[in-house]
């Protein structure tokens, strides 16, 4: 990858800041309308007269209540948003250790990060390349760029162990952690160090921005999911004092890290657990909604699945820790919301199962005559809730992102089962470059679900054309379509739009 073609060096195309002065007013107005609509729907839904098949009804209620809690949490989070402006440190420039852990990433991915880190101003920067891959080419890279090079003997604790090893060998009062593909801007420290000077601020997180979002539909959808988090949700979490560390583009006070004994090494989401421990010890966090570094997101289905599985497994595994931790209530609830998000897949599974069961057995969760009333009560709630997602995400959250998330239902289910069985997970680095071929195996469970839905839709059409069956066929088709869009990147392989092909590559092709 030449520097000319590297999208991480271009200006970011996205802003994590709130979209305008009236945003917060609109948002609160939207929530004020959503709440009575939610009440209207649930008051109707929870009426015993609605019970069709009791078991299915129970599952529906559980799924709907879970989603309502997630929605309420989302609205509550966003309503409390805080948008900190960049804040420089006044006075003498402090020493800052910039830690860039590396395992098996290519040199051309890592080198721009090291070079850009070396150029950061606002502090005396010491860049360290933490090479867990023990490769001499990395040593040469560090030497070439004037960065420090650290290599350890084992690989215990994966990324967390690597960082902890570096923490023991460095001494600056401020530590920056950058994933090796995240290229920081020159003003990264100038925009963040001022906030770190606040009382008991343990870390300042900045957005993770995928510069390769244009490289294919999967990268775009994955980025769209990230944009919602690092926009409205992260601003909201910061407003509630509950922003957690996301593992990269983050500035730590060494004192805070030492207070909790460094990064926890037994977790798949070491950053998340570290945040819990820091908040538990009374440390605070900050979020600067400004893109100060750009990295590379997953470009193919296998990478995405690997990343999501690690996050789901790690966050669900941390549920016990969050429940046990002595945290302020609102911070605890924020953490619980983040952890429990990865149970969403169960609700998707339940929703997909309802039409299948109805067409196969005739059983359905709601009493049959309730269909039109269901629409009357559900549609306003659903429509406005969806509008809220669109509004809070400032349009960044797309249908493809939703589809990809829905098609990942099985990852949530699998991860939660593993968490329940306390099976240990292994830390896998998310590949920084996508594979070009098709990867149907990476989406096999979603494909199987799509096949079942297709078969059931056809079976429904063959079996009868009564309105009730057609209604369920339509539901099956909705799920089928969403799943199809979600798994499409796995079936089509990575396809880069012409605009995303670097000029250098175009010249080479010519």
């Amino acid at each position, binding site marked *: 990858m030449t520097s000319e073609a590297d999208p991480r060096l271009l200006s970011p195309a996205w802003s994590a800041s709130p979209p305008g002065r009236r945003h917060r007013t609109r948002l609160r107005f939207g929530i004020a309308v959503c709440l009575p609509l939610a009440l209207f729907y649930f008051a109707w839904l929870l009426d015993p007269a609605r019970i069709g098949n009791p078991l299915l009804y129970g599952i529906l209620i559980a799924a709907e209540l879970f989603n309502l809690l997630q929605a309420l949490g989302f609205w509550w989070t966003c309503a409390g948003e805080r948008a900190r402006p960049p804040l420089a440190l006044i006075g003498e420039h402090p020493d800052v250790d910039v830690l860039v852990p590396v395992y098996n990433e290519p040199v051309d991915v890592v080198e721009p990060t090291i070079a850009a880190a070396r150029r950061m101003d606002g502090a005396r920067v010491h860049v360290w390349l933490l090479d867990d891959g023990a490769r001499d080419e990395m040593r040469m890279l560090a030497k070439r760029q004037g960065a420090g090079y650290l290599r350890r003997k084992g690989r215990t604790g994966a990324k967390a162990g690597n960082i902890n090893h570096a923490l023991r060998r460095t001494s600056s009062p401020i530590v920056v952690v950058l994933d090796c593909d995240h290229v920081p801007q020159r003003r990264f420290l100038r925009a963040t160090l001022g906030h770190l000077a606040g009382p008991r601020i343990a870390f300042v997180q900045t957005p993770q921005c995928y510069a390769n979002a244009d490289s294919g539909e999967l990268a775009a959808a994955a980025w*769209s999911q990230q944009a919602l988090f690092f926009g409205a949700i992260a601003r909201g979490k910061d407003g509630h004092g509950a922003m957690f560390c996301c593992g990269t583009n983050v500035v730590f006070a060494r004192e805070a890290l030492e207070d909790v004994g460094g990064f926890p090494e037994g977790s798949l989401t070491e950053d998340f657990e570290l945040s819990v421990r820091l908040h538990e010890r009374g440390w605070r966090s900050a979020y600067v909604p400004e893109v100060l570094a750009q990295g590379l997101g997953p470009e193919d289905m296998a990478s995405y699945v690997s990343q999501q599985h690690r996050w789901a497994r790690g966050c669900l595994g941390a549920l016990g820790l969050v429940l046990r931790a002595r945290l302020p209530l609102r911070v605890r609830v924020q953490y619980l919301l983040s952890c429990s998000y990865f149970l969403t897949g169960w609700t998707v599974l339940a929703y997909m199962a309802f039409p299948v069961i109805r067409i196969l057995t005739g059983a359905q969760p709601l009493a049959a005559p309730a269909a*039109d009333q269901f629409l009357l009560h559900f549609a306003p709630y659903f429509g406005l809730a*969806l509008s809220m997602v669109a509004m809070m995400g400032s*349009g960044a959250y*797309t249908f493809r992102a*939703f589809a990809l998330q829905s098609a990942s239902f099985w990852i949530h289910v699998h991860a939660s089962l593993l968490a329940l069985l306390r099976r240990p997970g292994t830390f896998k680095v998310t590949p920084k470059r996508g594979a070009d071929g098709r990867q149907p195996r990476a989406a096999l469970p979603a494909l199987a679900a799509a096949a079942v839905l297709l078969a059931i839709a056809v079976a429904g059409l063959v079996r009868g054309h009564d309105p009730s069956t*057609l209604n369920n066929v339509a*539901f099956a088709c909705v799920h089928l379509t969403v799943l199809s869009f979600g798994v499409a990147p796995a079936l089509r392989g990575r396809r880069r739009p012409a605009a995303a092909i670097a000029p250098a590559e175009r010249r080479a092709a010519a």
Partner: protein
Amino acid sequence: MSATPTMASGGRSRGAAPLPLRALAGEQLAVAAGQLAAGLGNLAFSLLAARLLAPGAFAHLASFLALYLLVHVPATSLSAGSALSPELASRVRRQVLAAGAGVGLLLAAASVPLSAALHLPLAMILLLAAAAPTAGLIALDRGRLYGLGAPRRAARSLLAEPVVRLSAGVVLGLAFGEAGAAAGVVLAGWAALAVARPPAYAAPRATGEAAAVGAGAGTGVTVVAFLLLAIVQNQDVVAAGALLGPDEAGRFAVLSTLGGLAAFATTTVPLMLLPRAASERRAFPAAVCVAGALGLAAVGVVAIDPSALVGAAFGPRYAAVAGLAAPYVLAMALLGVTRVLVAHACAVGRGRVVLVLLGAAAALQLVLLLVLGHDAAGVAHATLIATSALAATAGGAAVLQFPRAGTRARAAVRPLTTPPGAAVLALTAGGLVLRLLASRGLWLDEATEVSQAHMSYGAMLHNLASTDVHPPLHHTVLWLTVRVFGDGELAVRLPSLVAGTLLIPVLYRAGSELYDRRAGLAAAALAAVAPFPVWYSQEARMYSFFMLFAALAVWMQVRAVRRGRPGDWIGYALASAALLWNQYFSVLLVLTQQAAFAITVLRSGLDAGERRRLLRGWLGSALLIAVLVAPLLPFALEQFHANESAGKGFEGVPSQAGAAASQQQGLARPAIYGALTNAVWAVFGYHSDASMTRIAALWPLGILGSLALLGRGRSRTTLLLVACALAPMAALFVLGQKKPFIFEVRYFCAAVPIALLLIGRLVTGWVRPAAAAVALTLAAAGLMGVAAADQQLNQSNPRTYDFRGALDQIRQIARPGDIVVYTPQYLNTVIAYYGTGVHAKPLDNGLPRRHHSGRVFLLASFQDKPQYRNQARQSLLALRHQGRRLIASMHRPQIRVWELSR
């Protein structure tokens, strides 16, 4: 490397001057004449054989000819391939020969069981085996002749077949019976092949691997495309044989034979076009014209007197299908034109797109055949719908040179010679034809308005003010129309037809300016086939005007805000005033637009100058609307007081049937399904109550639609359109809680053109690649086309009132002294319109006297309303008590007629 085969040797060199259209069309016609002559010759052979052979022997020969055709039809797709790439003939000759020989050997090997199964003499099966190798070769070589620019030789090959049949076939037939005649047919095939075999010097010039690869891709697609066309042309015959009983299948065979005329006459046209399409600019329009002319001629021949034609050619027992002859021949004529469109697409490298269309059309036809194929009419309608949809979509794909997304139309109207202009012209013409095709009779409201239009203008206004609930614009236009064009069905519907057709180019312009040309073209394509505009273009009422003025008002509003020229503001004011003069409920749209102006003026981010400009224009246009509408106010007030004092309001308006589907059972007020039903009506038109319930049950697909909007961004234009579509509907929904009949799609049909604009935007903005946008647009238009077909043809559409049919039927059997009594009383206008020569009176005036000796026809409509149903039932009993007996009853859509006699 392009797969476009530009190396056809017979094609003219690039430097050569293009041939004039007339010359190209002349060549086409000459070859088509050869084809037609060959067809006539073959027909003459069959007729001669029918006279010369014994009936049983002729039946054997007819079966043999059918099997011969069966072997040849799939092979003809090879003609298209070799016409496009002449070198294909030499490249695959051996394989084709081997395949033909293989089929021949198989037939020969299985001749004994086949002979027994098909009840054919063994010799004829063996002759069929001998003919098998020629099928593919003839197709290949004839195609090559077209490709090499030797159509006359191809014509000679075509003519060789009937010549040999009529000479050798007749002689052999006389000598050896049916087997001899069959041998003549086989000989004719081999002779045609010998003539078609081109001389060696005419080998294609373009050789080389690159050319072969490029051609290979294109020719493969072409062959498959023409194979699919053959399937569309012939699968209805197969389906008729499989689905229908022998009698009904025989009736369809008559239609198929007649339809074959149109299909056969145009066979050579696409083959002539294929080698020239890429290099000769006018070859395509010439081919379209020739195929269209030949198809129309065939339709014309059949349509002049189908009963006489069918009776003379097939016997009186097939007279029942005479009414279907013209539509079926039209279907085949459309297929003929489609073949040209497909050939053009294949020749210019867009064959893959048409493959998708053809596959979809074949699948659609199959589904329709399975759904509708209960009788010959159903099979014919299935084919007509499929071929119409195919022709429309292939035509759309041919002319829609989709511009790049985001290209906004220039302010000046582009000349109609540019591709989008031609596309809009084609869509408008297509939309007009579609609007003209249906011929349902006037319904009650239309007849009432026509009767009002017959009054003096002053009397009409007085009548309107005292008895009606509508403003006078449409009545005034109709009053003038009746005086200029008379009061025939077409005449009184002319204003609606014009407005409904104008909606197509207006939506193109509006879509182009509001979004981009893609959206404009898509909106125009949708408007051409959308059921609701089609329906109201055929109704002598104000709703077509309503839609047109609404589209104009919204377009002008966006223009005024964006550009702000005085003409834009005046245009907006005129459109709004016209809306108000046309339909009172349009005030809801006008108010929505005024609110949008207010929001626009008050929104932050405007500089002072811009705000002043907008404010000036807004207030000025509002003032102009007020001035223009002021004269209407006294009239409206008088009307309102008259209705109030008469205690009518909107409950007094006879509602149309089908409203039941829009109301929740047990509730008098509109409910959520009512809103859904009205929304479905607006987009997909009127259908039977059962269909509407089913369609409404598909509401979860709306979830998908709303999810699809995620991440699409927000546009003020879209918000305005959504508000203009939904706000009046929502207001009427609320008002409908008090006065239920108000919540009726006709009264917010302004939402329909706006919805079409939004759908146009959705299908073209959803995807970037032009091909995908075209495919989505065609899919949406196809869906609407199918809905329109169901709306127009399905007699269970509750909005279809066949007063014309009922009264025609009565008139045919009524004698002097007979009387028609009808209920409800307000049918008087429609009875007066269609009941010329029939003595009729309303039931409210009493039953005929007991001693009335003539027959009594009791005609009842609106039988979904209990009071009229009971009135009809009681009257029937009373007439029986008078000593009359029921001798017949008939059903027409929404009408019942009982015939009683002493």
